[in-house]
């Protein structure tokens, strides 16, 4: 498992990161393109397989100059070939400005038709539309549509606008819905503020970045759209982009993260009032002589039991809560209020752990279903989670245990979205990276029990089913359901039980939902649907798939471009009893299926009982990431599991000829 999660780090690689201070060697001249279509442009045709179904961006160039006092100037030019009716949207122009038409310094817009004719959109063809107006600020869009656009045409438009204000962060994507032959983006930051840029997921052969004392120029060629694949990494981590941003200081990346780590450490110390923490530890009544990890586990459980996590309240708890502002800003006030935010609980646990003699540091991680940590981006805004890394005094870096105090998760587990990637580890001496391993499959286990039967008249199939899901396998569902208003929760529960497929749910329950540290549990009685069992049928068979099934991933494509990313290592067991339809008896059971793979194992056994069949199924899927070269082996495994899951059990009518 260790190798699996470490592989995820590769995805977070940063292409370049350099602060800029700089001159004019990056200058580009933005001007209208040729008024005729070149032979190469004429030759471009629609090709959905390469992403060029609707259009091709021939040239997109932008020059943003922030170094004009309080103003900026934006020059823009787009030239594109239109290949479909949908692609005509490229000719719809919307220019964001502050005040209206007066902000527009230069404009050109033309359509070059397949027959060579050129149709212009004059400046007065643009109309200003207010987007927002208040007494102190306003913003507009200048809108216009290039005329005469048909598939096969080339559109070419551009403008220069002036405006006020600076964008703190401007992320420029270099890959679009359609191919782009050439993209150029030049930025002249305001020299009054420290500025930086970072490029992500750029291919050095296709993207060049040139910086001088006052500006930076990004040039990209032949950028293709990213095609969707199931279980792919987040799009944000696949698309080439460059982020231009202003920072608080002009320090190096190393210095930035070191200073940030030290600030977090200072915050932690300020939060941790020694007296209050001492009193809390006293309440924990931890016996002496207990190993450090047991001590820490006891403290962790004490927080889970005694201090409410205000970020995880159920709808009922939130409704009942006293909304008077509780000034919880340090350990003392959190302990007094008996509640705190997720981050406050992490700080509280870190303070307690230190007081207990352990080493404890605050860790930040991203939500890896959305993005990975970019060390080249100097901001904490990219992080979505905070945890505490704890270890015994003097232990090595491989001994850090990450915990999420007050989360309801067992000691040593963190939400799966934070796992399989690297986290930012703060400390008095500076920063470090720490791996956040996924929890093992046994901790994300789910157990499902199903009893399938037929109505007295054999018209319908009924099922009673229940599931208990531990760790990551039930966490999202439990938190989501707890947060819903009761009527909405009831509706969603019915849906989960089978109403989504048109099943009629007669009973549905969520045992233990009130307990924020309990596993996810569900119990359902549902009429699944018609059996379609008629008098003329002598043999009747059915598969065991149903609303209760947690199917193996479907990976239909034979090859793979991007890694396969799963949520967490999982293990499932299913126990299914199937009663024979009235007047039928079970045949011999199907042969057992056993599958073993580097990515998990699977077993299906069906046995005949007095009333029908008993089925035992176990399935595990271990990896979080599978790289493209290993895809075939993974696909073979999940395909085999999906096939085995469609095993049918059969019944013969009693008294009928075999």
């Amino acid at each position, binding site marked *: 498992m260790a190798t699996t999660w470490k592989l995820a780090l590769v995805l977070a690689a940063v292409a370049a990161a350099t602060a800029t201070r700089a001159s004019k060697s990056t200058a580009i001249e933005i001007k209208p393109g040729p008024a005729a279509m070149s032979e190469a442009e004429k030759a471009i045709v629609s090709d959905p397989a390469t992403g060029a179904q609707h259009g091709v961006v021939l040239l997109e160039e932008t020059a943003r100059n922030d170094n004009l006092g309080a103003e900026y100037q934006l020059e823009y030019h787009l030239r594109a070939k239109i290949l479909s009716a949908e692609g005509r949207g490229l000719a719809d122009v919307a220019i964001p400005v502050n005040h209206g038409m007066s902000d527009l310094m230069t404009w050109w817009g033309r359509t070059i038709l397949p027959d060579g004719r050129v149709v212009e959109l004059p400046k007065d063809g643009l109309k200003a539309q207010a987007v*927002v107006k208040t*007494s102190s600020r306003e913003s507009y869009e200048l809108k216009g549509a290039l005329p*005469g656009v*048909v598939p096969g045409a080339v559109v070419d438009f551009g403008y220069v606008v002036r405006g006020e204000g600076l964008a703190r962060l401007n992320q420029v994507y270099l890959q679009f819905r359609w191919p782009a032959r050439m993209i150029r983006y030049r930025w002249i930051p305001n020299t009054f503020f420290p500025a930086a840029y970072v490029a992500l997921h750029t291919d050095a052969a296709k993207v060049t970045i040139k910086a001088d004392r006052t500006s930076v120029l990004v040039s990209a060629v032949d950028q293709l759209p990213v095609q969707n694949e199931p279980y792919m990494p987040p799009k944000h981590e696949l698309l080439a982009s460059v982020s231009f941003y202003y920072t608080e200081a002009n320090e190096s990346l190393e210095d930035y993260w070191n200073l940030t780590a030290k600030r977090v450490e200072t915050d932690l110390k300020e939060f941790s009032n020694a007296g209050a923490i001492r009193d809390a530890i006293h309440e924990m009544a931890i016996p002496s002589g207990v190993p450090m990890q047991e001590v820490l586990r006891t403290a962790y459980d004490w927080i889970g039991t005694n201090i409410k996590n205000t970020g995880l309240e159920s*709808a009922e708890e939130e*409704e009942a809560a006293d909304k008077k502002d509780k000034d919880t800003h340090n350990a003392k006030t959190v302990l007094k209020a008996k509640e705190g935010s997720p981050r406050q609980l992490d700080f509280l646990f870190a303070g307690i752990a230190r007081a207990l003699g352990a080493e404890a540091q605050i860790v930040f991680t991203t939500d890896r279903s959305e993005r990975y940590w970019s060390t080249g981006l100097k901001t904490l805004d990219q992080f979505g989670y905070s945890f505490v890394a704890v270890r015994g005094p003097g232990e090595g870096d491989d001994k850090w245990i990450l915990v999420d105090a007050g989360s309801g998760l067992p000691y040593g587990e963190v939400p799966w979205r934070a796992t399989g990637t690297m986290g930012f580890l703060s400390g008095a001496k500076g920063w470090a990276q720490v791996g956040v391993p996924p929890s093992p499959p046994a901790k994300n286990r789910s157990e499902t029990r199903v009893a399938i039967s037929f109505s007295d008249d054999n*018209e319908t199939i009924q099922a009673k089913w229940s599931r208990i899901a531990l760790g990551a396998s039930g966490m999202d569902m439990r938190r989501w359901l707890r947060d819903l208003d009761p009527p909405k929760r009831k509706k969603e529960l019915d849906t989960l039980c089978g109403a989504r497929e048109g099943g009629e749910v007669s009973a549905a329950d969520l045992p233990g939902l009130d307990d924020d540290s309990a596993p996810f549990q569900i119990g359902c009685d549902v009429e699944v649907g018609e059996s379609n069992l008629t008098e003329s049928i002598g043999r009747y068979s059915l598969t065991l798939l149903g609303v209760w099934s947690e199917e193996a991933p479907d990976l239909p494509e034979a090859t793979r471009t991007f890694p396969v990313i799963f949520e967490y290592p999982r293990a499932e067991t299913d126990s299914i009893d199937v009663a024979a339809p009235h007047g039928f008896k079970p045949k011999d059971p199907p042969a057992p299926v056993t599958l073993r793979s580097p990515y998990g194992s699977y077993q299906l056994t069906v046995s005949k009982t007095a009333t029908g069949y008993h089925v035992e199924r176990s399935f595990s899927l271990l990896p979080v990431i599978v790289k493209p070269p290993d895809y075939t082996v993974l696909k073979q495994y999940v*395909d085999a599991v999906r096939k085995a899951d*469609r095993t049918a059990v059969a019944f013969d009518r009693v008294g009928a000829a075999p």
Partner: protein
Amino acid sequence: MIRRPTIARTAALVAGLAAALFAPPARAGLPEWAKAVAQSAPELPEGMPEWPSRTLLWERHVIVSPDGTWKIDDRKAEQYLSNRVDDIAFHFFAYDDTTKIKRSKGWHVPPGERAHRDVAGAIDVAVSDTFLTDAKARAIALEGVKKGSLVFYEVEAEAKPYALAMRESFFDEVPVAAARYVVDLPPGWSLHHAWLPSAGPEPVRSGSTWTFELKELSPVKAERLGPDPFAVAPELVLGLTPPAGAAPPTPAFRDWSDLGRWWWSIAKGRDAGGPPIQKAADDAISKAGAGAIERIRAVTLYVRDRVRYLDREVGIGGYQPRPATQVFNELYGDCKDKGTLLRAMLAAEGYLSYPILVKASRPDTVAESVPDLEAFDHFVVGVVWPKDAPEPEDLASSLVDVPGAGRLVVIDATDEYAWPGTLPAHLAGKRALVVMSEASVLVTLPAGDPTTHRIAKTAVTTLGAAGSAAVKLEVKLYGAPAEVARVECARSAVDRRKSAEDDARRAWPGANVKDYAVTAESSDGAYTETLGLDLPAGSSVVQDGVISLFASALQDSARVSLTKRAVPVVYRGPLGLRYDATLAGVPATAETPKPEQIAGDGWSVVSSFDRKGDAIHGTWRFDRTRARFEPAAFPELKQMWAAASRAASPAIRVGP
């Protein structure tokens, strides 16, 4: 046409602006009307409230001037019932360039405290997806809202409308204790009204003041296959009539013909063609067949495909079409622009046509006795069907008889994925106005039928050795299903192909898709996909020696749980499903299934089978003409689903 603003989406934007603009709250006294509401506010419910807030009072008071302008006073009082509400409350007042806001205010009375005035100031935001629009909303934001808070809003505005008619929806996302619409008329003026979608209370009249009031309204919650909550909310339509001899500049519509005449007055001459349009029409028709529909369709496809849809709804531009020549040159426009160009091109070829106004976005918007412009938001074209021309069978769902105009084929040139001659499902069955220069006529558009909107599958399965099989599948979609598929294919041919292949692999699990081809639009309007599938030996499809004949026949028929459902099941329109299945290579011992035939109120299911040599051929046909099932009809609906499922279930025993 002008659309209603989509306010909800702007809340986040306004929240950000409001947060930036908030200053410390100022103490302020409540207006008298608000004090009265505050004093009589009901107790908060115990426990978990069903709704986060409730509207205690909404009142719009419209004072009409003799010159046809009016003053609007808008008031709203809300009570917050839950701790789970956002701490910034908003009120949105939707308006456009016909209206000027003179004043807008808000007050917040936190529980146990004095009133605070809003201090964020006026925030006006654009609230429409329309490319160019003057639709906007004045947002009033109040901060610090919590359980027990009372909030009050006032907006004062002046309007100069395009017509002496008013329309107000009483929809709210939370319960409403009292909603009131008050109209003060000038001396001698009269008013007629209608409630939609069903009858409502009579107004209380005091002198020249008319008061329409509803109490204890509770919103319908959105359900899958359920009615649109907005569409079922009460809506009031008012028509104002000045006294005889008075001639305010704003027109009054005494009847639908008046409205039609007004529309003609602003559209006059805009359907004129010219040599380029004539040539384009000639070119289009030159490639068409001789039949009337082929020729009409050829011209329609020119407009449908070449003129890109771009809505620009600013001022009178929300109603007035741009000249056909302009649209022809620019090659973009909205529904009325595209429709007007189509009319010009049809006229160039000798086809008389009429504008038809209809509401595309929701049903039941036409008040028969109170004409108003907001009854419609879409423009289609009714082409007079040549008297002697034979009517193709597949044209039935587009033909309507209109007194004074004759038999019209209804064409929507805006919908880029609808087949001309097939009325799009979102228009089917709706009331629409056929606009004629003198006597416009309300008509009901054809409701559609399962033949027009159908999915026809043909599957030929050839059994191989050791339980292997090969499947050739052809799926042809017509009408609404074809439109949906064309949209998906146009957006991404790659994604549509994946979706079609996924559907096929769900029907034949374990199958490998060997080939795929698509024809997005054939000469009969079909969207056709063909797939070749290989089922390897040991596939789960052929288990226990049995194979299903109509694999996943019900894949395209949506179904919902009924036991706890209180709202009707509403389908988009009628639907026909056809399945022709051939299973080749079956042993002689295999039994041929028995046919089924069952029908109910608005539906029927038929299956039939025959055997030729080693092949069994089956057909399954499901027709649903009915689109709406009230709760009382749920047993009927269940019976329909069960019958369709049973008729589609036959399996052939091909092994021991």
